[in-house]
């Protein structure tokens, strides 16, 4: 049996999971809320205390070395089945080892798969580092045995939403903070909140981050290390599940039998995993000069306190910074490049041309700072071929051409064909998406160049700024530095000779027009997709006349939505309605934008509309409802429409 003696935090006073629970229960913070609630509801504090205890029992982990060993053993077998290699940056592990001894540590991995946290814990175990406690969704508890096993391996469970439940919030926050303060174990959670179904980094959630930052704000700890971790998969385990989900086929509930059924994937090959443990970032350094200390000095520290605007802004900045660090250290496989090229050249692309373009894109990606796993001695053909082999479920080689693998096309109804094709496109897009955050700044400059009425810098910038705002939920931008992003984009484009800048103007070079149009084509699915989705909000009555929906169900929804233009609707109503609408357009062939079917894009578009003030979001007892401001939506469409020449699908090709 492996001898496991991890290095631990220097200030650690060792204790059992149960001791932590009772410390939480007895803490001033929780007791305060219990007393408050008891007073407000006229109940006895004992009853509420009982409730708190139940919450803790539901939530708390019970880390046991036995379970950890069991997992380590099983996982090592399974991982060996599934993956060819797991690559780790050793110096990152060493830095982490050092950090763990010095200050409380928060691990912030990217989230693409359930494998993430299993792999990370396995890794830390293997490297003899302290095992983290992991914030997991409560849905795992639905899995018999496995849920409990995860609990024993250090997972603690949080409800998906508990905004209104003060007791839950207090208990949860205190639980996390108690573990952090005592240096009990590194705390691990996902900034993105959930697995990204698109492999594009999701905009961060702030709740847990602000909880783990609070002990430092209150100076209960000297410092806290935030460690961004990038986990890159050559092939994502859940890729097809995700694609179905994006198309509205519901996510299967987590269940043990589901897990057992999924075991057939064991015979599949999922390539290489790269784990990059980033430089630990000192929260103290980040906060120096930014946080006014007064608010925390004038109120007893155990009272729940709404963070000031300063603090909220700071938390948000840190969250974005961490995600950008994750993105920076992602490892891209050659297949990612192939997918990006292929998507611009559907339905089929000549193999040799694909190789050529892939090689060209490799150079561009490296110029933009992307890290590609491409050994020097590996020839392009081999790289592309091995990608095609690994992803044979997505694309394949037919008669010297590479085509998407959307089998079953011939014998289906139109709807079936669209669905199949959409599935393949979305799966393929998942890989292209891994490039997007590396490309987004120069690419949006490229798009802006095409949108702007002239090459004058201000106009290009204003278009860039507009796009950046519209796509603020789609891609990761550090808040409030639009100009810096623009300059970076211009710099990168200049670096690859795609544009030239003078004092007043920015214009594409002759040599660079290929690059500019490739970049704008890369982001066209988003530009077009958003237009389609936004237009939906204003033009539905027209659409209703032009295309007679065949299905009664869709009809109902269209009518419903068009009526809803005056009334409020919810996200739950919006998504299926939009999906059906886009479906219709695709069936009719009036758009080629399959990615507009993605519920992810639909949600992002809606939230962009909210942020731009074109849709009003209101909180009601039953969740959020939305109201469309027709005029404002029209204006946004004008921004797109008036300035973007309508591109035919053919023109989109490189």
């Amino acid at each position, binding site marked *: 049996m492996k001898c496991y003696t991890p290095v631990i935090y220097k200030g650690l006073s060792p204790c059992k999971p149960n001791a932590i629970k009772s410390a939480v229960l007895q803490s001033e913070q929780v007791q305060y809320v219990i007393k408050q609630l008891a007073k407000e509801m006229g109940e006895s504090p004992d009853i509420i205390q009982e409730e708190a205890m139940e919450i803790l029992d539901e939530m708390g982990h019970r880390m046991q070395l036995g379970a950890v060993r069991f997992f380590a053993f099983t996982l090592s077998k399974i991982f060996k089945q599934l993956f060819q290699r797991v690559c780790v940056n050793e110096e990152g592990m060493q830095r982490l080892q050092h950090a763990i001894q010095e200050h409380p540590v928060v691990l912030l991995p990217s989230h693409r798969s359930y494998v993430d946290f299993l792999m990370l814990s396995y890794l830390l175990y293997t490297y003899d580092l302290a095992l983290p406690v992991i914030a997991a969704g409560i849905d795992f508890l639905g899995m018999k045995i496995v849920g409990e096993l995860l609990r024993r391996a250090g997972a603690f469970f949080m409800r998906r939403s508990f905004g209104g439940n003060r007791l839950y919030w207090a208990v949860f926050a205190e639980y996390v903070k108690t573990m952090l303060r005592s240096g009990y174990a590194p705390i691990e959670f996902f900034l993105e909140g959930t697995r990204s179904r698109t492999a594009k980094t999701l905009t961060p959630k702030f709740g847990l981050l602000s909880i783990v930052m609070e002990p430092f704000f209150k100076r209960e700890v000297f410092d806290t290390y935030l460690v961004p971790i990038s986990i890159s998969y050559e092939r994502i385990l859940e890729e097809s599940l995700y694609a179905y989900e994006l198309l509205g086929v519901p996510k299967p509930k987590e269940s043990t039998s589901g897990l057992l059924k999924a075991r057939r994937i064991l015979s599949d090959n999922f390539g290489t995993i790269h784990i990059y443990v980033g430089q630990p970032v000192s929260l103290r350094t980040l906060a120096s000069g930014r946080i006014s200390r007064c608010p*925390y000095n004038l109120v007893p520290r155990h009272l729940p306190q709404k963070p000031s605007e300063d603090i909220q802004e700071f938390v948000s900045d840190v969250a974005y910074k961490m995600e950008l660090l994750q993105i920076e250290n992602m490892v891209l496989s050659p297949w990612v490049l192939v997918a990006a090229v292929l998507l611009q050249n559907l339905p089929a692309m000549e193999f040799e041309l694909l190789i050529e373009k892939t090689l060209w894109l490799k150079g561009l990606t490296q110029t933009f700072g992307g890290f590609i796993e491409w050994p020097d001695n590996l020839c392009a053909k081999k790289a592309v071929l091995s990608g095609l082999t690994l992803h044979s479920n997505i694309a394949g080689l037919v008669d010297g051409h590479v085509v998407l693998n959307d089998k079953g096309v011939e014998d289906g109804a139109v709807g079936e064909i669209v669905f199949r094709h959409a599935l393949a496109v979305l799966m393929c897009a998942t890989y292209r998406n891994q490039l997007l955050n590396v490309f987004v700044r120069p690419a949006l400059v490229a798009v802006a160049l095409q949108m702007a009425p002239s090459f004058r810098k201000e106009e290009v910038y204003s278009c860039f700024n507009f796009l950046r705002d519209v796509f603020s939920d789609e891609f990761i931008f550090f808040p409030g530095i639009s100009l810096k992003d623009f300059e970076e984009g211009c710099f990168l484009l200049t670096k690859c000779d795609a544009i030239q800048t003078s004092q007043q103007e920015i214009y594409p070079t002759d040599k660079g027009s290929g690059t500019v149009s490739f970049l704008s084509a890369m982001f066209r699915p988003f530009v077009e997709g958003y237009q389609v989705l936004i237009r939906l909000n204003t033009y539905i009555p027209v659409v209703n006349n032009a295309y007679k929906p065949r299905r009664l169900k869709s009809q109902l929804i269209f009518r419903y939505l068009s009526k809803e233009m005056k009334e409020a609707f919810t996200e739950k109503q919006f998504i299926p309605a939009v999906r059906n609408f886009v479906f219709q357009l695709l069936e009719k062939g009036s758009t080629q934008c399959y990615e507009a079917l993605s519920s992810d894009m639909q949600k992002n578009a809606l939230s962009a509309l909210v942020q731009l003030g074109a849709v009003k979001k209101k909180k009601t007892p039953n969740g959020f409802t939305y109201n469309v401001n027709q005029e404002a939506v029209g204006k946004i469409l004008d921004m797109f429409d008036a300035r973007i020449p309508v591109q035919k699908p053919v023109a989109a090709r490189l």
Partner: protein
Amino acid sequence: RGSGAGAEGAGVIEPGEKEAQGWPCHSTAPCQEVVATQELLKWNGWGYNDSKFIFNKKGQAEFTGKRYRLGGMVLPTFKEWIEKTFGASLEHKTTSRASLNVNDVPPPIVNEEFLQDLRATKISYSQDAEDRVFRAHGHCLHEIFVLREGMFKRIPDIVVWPVCHEDVVKIVELACKHNLCIIPFGGGTSVSSALECPEEEKRMIISLDTSQMNRILWIDEKNLTACVEAGIVGQDLEKQLAESGFCTGHEPDSMEFSSLGGWVATRASGMKKNIYGNIEDLVIHIKMVTPRGIVEKNCQVPRMSTGPDIHHFIMGSEGTLGVVTEVTIKIRPVPEYQKYGSVVFPNFERGVACLREVAKQRCAPASIRLVDNAQFQFGHALKPQVASIFTSFLDGLKKFYITKFKGFDPNILCVATLLFEGDREKVLQHEKQVYDIATKFGGLAAGEDNGQRGYMLTFVIAYLRDLGLDYYVIGESFETSVPWDRVLDLCRNVKERIVRECKEKGVQFAPLSTCRVTQTYDAGACVYFYFAFNYRGISDPIHVYEQIERAAREEILANGGSLSHHHGVGKLRKRWMKESISDVGLGMLRSVKEYVDPNNIFGNKNLL
């Protein structure tokens, strides 16, 4: 008379000894012979000329002189401690200039008309360079460093010695008449740069030395008050009161040298405040001479409701408003019985919890202090050579009991020192109560001797800095007050910050960064930090030192601590005043200054 910030404070310097242990036998010259006093004291370091740490021919540390209990004793483990703690070596020595170089001293600015008027008053004065330099500084590290290696850019142009309230009135009138600057000077133990002359001051600077106003004017046994001239030095005040069977009980660590007026001007705090109170609790009446005239109350009563208490404009004014000349102060009969004590705790956390409980039950002894492990070790290093085999056997046995039998880790444990005072019976009863509480927090009684030595050490540390300076080690102390719930976090974070900053600033050897809780209150505690490091290899040690000290203060404020508990603000901590008392608060103080002293006669630029 008022010693703006002249007196209290004493940086690294903590308490004097008790009379019982034998204070320094010398008494500050009560006569007009100012020179006598001045010559007894070091010109470039802390305290008496004859008292200092040295390394004898055998390379062992020794404390010279006969003033203190440690005098003449050999400290066998001290050298090793210094080497281990600072990485210092006896081979690397720096030496101070042996005496003041009169040629370096900036020439005085002289206002002849004033001099003529002054001569007419018959008040003694001096324009001698040594007299002026002696009053140009307090005891901040950078000030001592300048004395050893450089020269101040601006020093007082003249020193005057008023002998009574009326003399002060005359001097202030003359200063107003000729528009000159007055800086009151008491004991000169300031650790806030309060005595430094503003470089840009173009007027003649008068150092108003209050040391000759040192009489007890009367003692009122019925009301237990005494009216005292403000220039009296702490130890003299206690000695003279003792002759009548009384004491004030106010014992700041600098009391050998600091003056009553200085205590008032800085809001001083005494070691035994638990019984006697801090200066603001002790003062019944203050007479202060300002450019506007004399400010005082019309009666000597325990409390009055007549608007904001004007005493509170005066206490802590740090010499910016005028000169405190006479103070009526509460006195108590000298206590019948005194007893030291000490308690060992397994760790600092338990110790703080115990002090908190003692404060909660309001049963704190005259003094209760908790030193952290580093200071415990330091205290150990200052143990004199043991005279008999029996004592060393006993020490070994004690050590065995605590570390082996009780399982205390000698690198974690910490010690509280206690001082009880009062009726014999009550003291014993009180003692039991405190030890019972301590037991609940895992504390073990560790004997009277350890307690007594603890109190002696706090003052010895002041002398230690001069030794350190000879071996490339610089250090200082600073203090704060903090709510109970933040004591532990603040102590840990500030110490850690110091260590980190040292590392970042290129200090080669980890610094000594240590703290102790020195006072307990209902709502919080006073915490004292010591910080010292070996500066070999650093080109500008004072600058580095100041950066680190500043970072430490930032850390204190971020942890909910105060800007100062009793050292005052001076010029050293001015930058944080606005943050500490708000814009409006600062404006309130400014408007008082503007009314009282519109021409900024009291122009030491402290506080505001």
